[in-house]
């Protein structure tokens, strides 16, 4: 009934109305909350030292920023070593994850044949098992009278039970590996599975051996998957505060996430302002990899067939 141009603008209105609830939701509950972090970080301290949010940017103060700076570099600094430890743990855990995940994903993508569905079910299974249940499983095994110690002493590798849960860094690093590796494996599998089999066959037909085909054809073609997979594991590992709490619980293995979590929840939230500053710092460091990941997601969702 309406003319073509009137119809089109009416349609635009329809689509805008359809998107509106989501847009309002994201504005109120995603954008505003991040402004709240800024308002707390730039806020002032009241007479009792409690952080007060300041919503007008013109009145922001640097009280929390100097407080956070003293945590990093002042006389009572404690955050510096924690940041270093976090980077070390995460680097180690992600490298170990990649070394374990790549061969497994490669096998399932290329060689599983008719049993592919079976292998895939087993690879995906951890997705459906809660993270806490999976940590609980290792807590059971790693107790001083648990099966890990029993097996190790049966093999005469240890003379007396090891206190695995008493603050050992290796337990925390392997806990991180165990926790996040399923995500990495699935991304690697999807990337490796997409590689055209004909390209690999071509490499072999042209006289390359197994290893050289892998190095010259498969590996370069899975670089994107490796990058995305590493991001998908490294980003949550950096913010992890519960794995080390469950598997060690001592301050000797505390990570950056614990600093934020503690400042938020302990001592009635007096340090929440510094927690906000550290969250901002964290966000600032991660913004580049996140934007890269957004780009990759955008590309793949647009190019999906």
């Amino acid at each position: 009934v309406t003319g073509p141009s009137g119809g089109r603008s009416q349609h635009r209105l329809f689509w805008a109305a359809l998107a509106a609830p989501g847009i309002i939701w994201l504005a109120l509950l995603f954008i505003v909350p991040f402004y709240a972090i800024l308002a707390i970080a730039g806020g002032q301290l009241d007479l009792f030292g409690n952080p007060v949010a300041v919503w007008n940017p013109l009145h922001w103060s640097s009280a929390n920023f100097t407080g956070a700076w003293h945590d990093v570099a002042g006389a009572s600094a404690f955050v510096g070593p924690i940041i270093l430890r976090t980077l070390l743990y995460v680097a180690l855990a992600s490298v170990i994850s990649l070394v374990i995940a790549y061969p497994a994903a490669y096998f399932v993508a290329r060689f599983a044949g008719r049993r592919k569905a079976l292998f895939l079910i087993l690879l995906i299974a951890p997705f459906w098992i809660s993270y806490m249940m999976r940590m609980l499983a290792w807590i059971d095994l790693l107790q001083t009278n648990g099966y890990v110690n029993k097996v190790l002493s049966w093999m005469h590798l240890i003379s007396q039970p090891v206190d695995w849960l008493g603050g050992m860094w290796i337990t925390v690093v392997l806990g991180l590996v165990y926790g996040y590796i399923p995500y990495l494996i699935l991304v690697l599998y999807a990337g490796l599975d997409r590689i055209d089999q004909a390209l690999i066959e071509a490499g072999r037909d042209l006289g390359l051996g197994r290893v050289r085909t892998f190095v010259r054809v498969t590996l370069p073609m899975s670089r994107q998957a490796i990058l995305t997979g590493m991001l998908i594991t490294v980003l949550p590992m950096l913010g992890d505060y519960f794995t080390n709490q469950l598997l060690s619980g001592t301050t000797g293995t505390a990570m950056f996430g614990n600093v934020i979590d503690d400042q938020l929840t302990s001592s009635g939230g007096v340090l929440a302002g510094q927690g906000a500053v550290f969250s901002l710092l964290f966000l600032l460091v991660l913004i580049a990899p996140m934007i890269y990941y957004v780009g990759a997601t955008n590309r793949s969702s647009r190019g999906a067939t």
Partner: protein
Amino acid sequence: MTTTATRSPARADQRRTVGTVLGKLRPRRNPWRHAWFLEGFTWLYLIWSLLPVALAVLFSFNNGRSQSVWQGFSWRWYYQDPVNSVLHNPDLHAAVIQTLRLSVYVTLITVPLGVAFALGINRWRGPVASSFNFVMILSFVIPELIFGVAMFFVFTRLFTSVGLGSLAEVLALVTWNVSWPALIVQARLVTIGRHYEEAAADLGATPWQVTYRVMMRLLAPAIFASAVLVFSGVIDDFVLVDLLSSNSGNTPMSVYIYSQQRGGNGGPALNALGTIMLVMSFAVAIVGYVGYRWLTRGERGSRIDALTTIAGEG
């Protein structure tokens, strides 16, 4: 016969030369032999990945207080123990109920919100649409701890009438999960293309009719898959609910397990709770797989596609 007889020696000779040349080029072993080493490695990984959980499930049936020494089979920690079983301990079963409630509420809100958002953003286009699409994807990749901190501040300092508790948990989980339906539906829209829509519009359908009668039918598998992902994602979620829960009435299973185990109050009852979570998730996964296969019947997709889609890697 004669022609072949005269030609065959020459040909055999020729073939022999080619054979020797190829023999020098070809690797000595069969290039397509099975990768036994990799298969063994994969099995080792799978055992390492799944056996501990199987043992943890086993210990939920332990007839004793230990989580590490087997003392016989019992249902003690599920319902027999009058004090500390999941059935009789109010905190334990409150945790089960809270997890279920959150999963249902969050799925019911998130999926329509995300699907409408995806459809609208995809067709509307323009600066507002694309910048909010960017915000949506950002919510997909932001570390959960930072998002949790933001939520904590906004509910304790700005929207103080919300406060901490169930409402805060639902609002935060919806925001955190809305990118699932939004991303999956957008990917599906790309696959579908615009032909059906244009055909329907040419036949006189209004945008609402196109959306409701055509698009909803075509998007059904994507919507279903995202509902499965959101539901199981909420069961598994920890960080947001940990930061936003305030008492035992609004503490879901994951947070309960964490706080009790960390506080030194571990015991097979926690394993029982974890096992219940596991059974819930597996049930969702099976329903998800069967349902997705049913919705995509007649399409080319394989069992493997259904598996990866249900795991969020479609």
